[in-house]
């Protein structure tokens, strides 16, 4: 398991590119810049479901909500490479 210490670039489709902040979840890093829906912030409700277009993320808590193979839950993951995402 990698550590959440890097600050990879997060390119958000139709929005700007933001930088991930170390030790934060992806949701915490991007919510200051774009409107993104969330509820539980713990990976079980699926409200923050987001498409991962490019790159890789790692989960810090096991995501329980249903997601498609090309989707991620920003509330409980962090990027381990530069990523491109699309918020629905």
């Amino acid at each position, binding site marked *: 398991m990698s550590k959440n210490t890097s600050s990879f670039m997060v390119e958000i489709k139709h929005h700007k590119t933001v930088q991930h902040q170390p030790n934060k979840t992806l949701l915490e890093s991007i919510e200051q810049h774009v409107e993104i829906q969330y509820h539980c912030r713990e990976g079980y409700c699926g409200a923050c479901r987001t498409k991962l277009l490019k790159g890789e993320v790692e989960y810090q808590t096991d995501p329980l*909500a249903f997601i498609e193979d090309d989707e991620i839950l920003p509330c409980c993951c962090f990027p381990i490479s530069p990523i491109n995402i699309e918020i629905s």
Partner: protein
Amino acid sequence: MKYTTFNQVNNNPLLEPMFFGNPVNVARYDQQKHHIFEKLIEKQISFFWRPEEVDVSKDRVDFQKLSDSEKHIFISNLKYQTLLDSIQGRSPNIAFLPIISIPELETWVETWSFFETIHSRSYTHILRNLFGDPSSIFDDIVENEEIKKRAADISKYYDDLIFATQLWQTLGEGTHTIKGETHVITMRELKKKLYLCMNSVNALEAIRFYVSFACTFAFAERELMEGNSKIIRLIARDENLHLTSTQHVLNLWAKGKDDPEMAEIAEECKEQATQIFLNAVEQEKEWAGFLFQHGSMIGLNKEILCQYVEFIANHRMSAIGLGQPFDIKNNPLPWMNNYLSSDNVQVAPQESEISSYLVGQIDSEVNSDDFGDFDL
């Protein structure tokens, strides 16, 4: 097929479909066909709470200060929530357990239903605090036309599945005439009823609760009825998990990861599933109209609430592959998220007014004038 409480066939549960395979025999969780249900059980159990832990005594004072239209909103919501959890506290058990074929799903359904009974008990806790005798409130649930209308629509899919399952268990597949009425029971028909029922339950967990949640949290935004809001926050957290489980079941079917016949049915009945959802949206909007018929409350009115229902419906429907039928893009009630976030739910006992934590249940509030006649 006759139901047996311990199936003596030495089957491999990893090869059983979620529903309509062999009845479950050994309740074992060391191996799972669908790991998600075991994870949901663990998560749900970690959420355990008791209504009595939440001090609702201040709500009684707040309630007296509410206007008549606000009292109508508050009490009507509690009645509706009581109805929903009355149904959910028993129906998944009665409808699904007799036809489930894998142990982890069986236990998930039992755990899920058990939590709904905690919710029901918490409504009694809230109402008993507000009224010395809450009987008239409970009695109205089976008399109030607005509530009965919803009850009929929610329970019909359950009732339909339960009755068909009973016929199948006692008489098997075939055409059966019961009291002059003909019923065609085939496995395909049973599975269709199951599919529609699961969609109806999913819509219930996904949006039906949210109109009343919004009202509760709108009161809490004004620092009113906060004990009630604390309880509803705990309930909302559980409901989110229940919703996740029905979304998983529906998606496992639709993606052909379980019973291949259910994948066909999902395709065939997509239109009906969409309609179930849209009907629930319409009914919730009507309910919003009923709630606000005597006037709005600060921060919330019928229009915003209807927009919120559409916004939530878009999210919930896209999660099960039904698209986003409504135009709304932005959350009209952004503060709702704060109440639905689990960070704001779990509190250490010493940080909140958990009555069982107080020694001898003594009133924890001390005002400066309590020391008025103190002399040193």
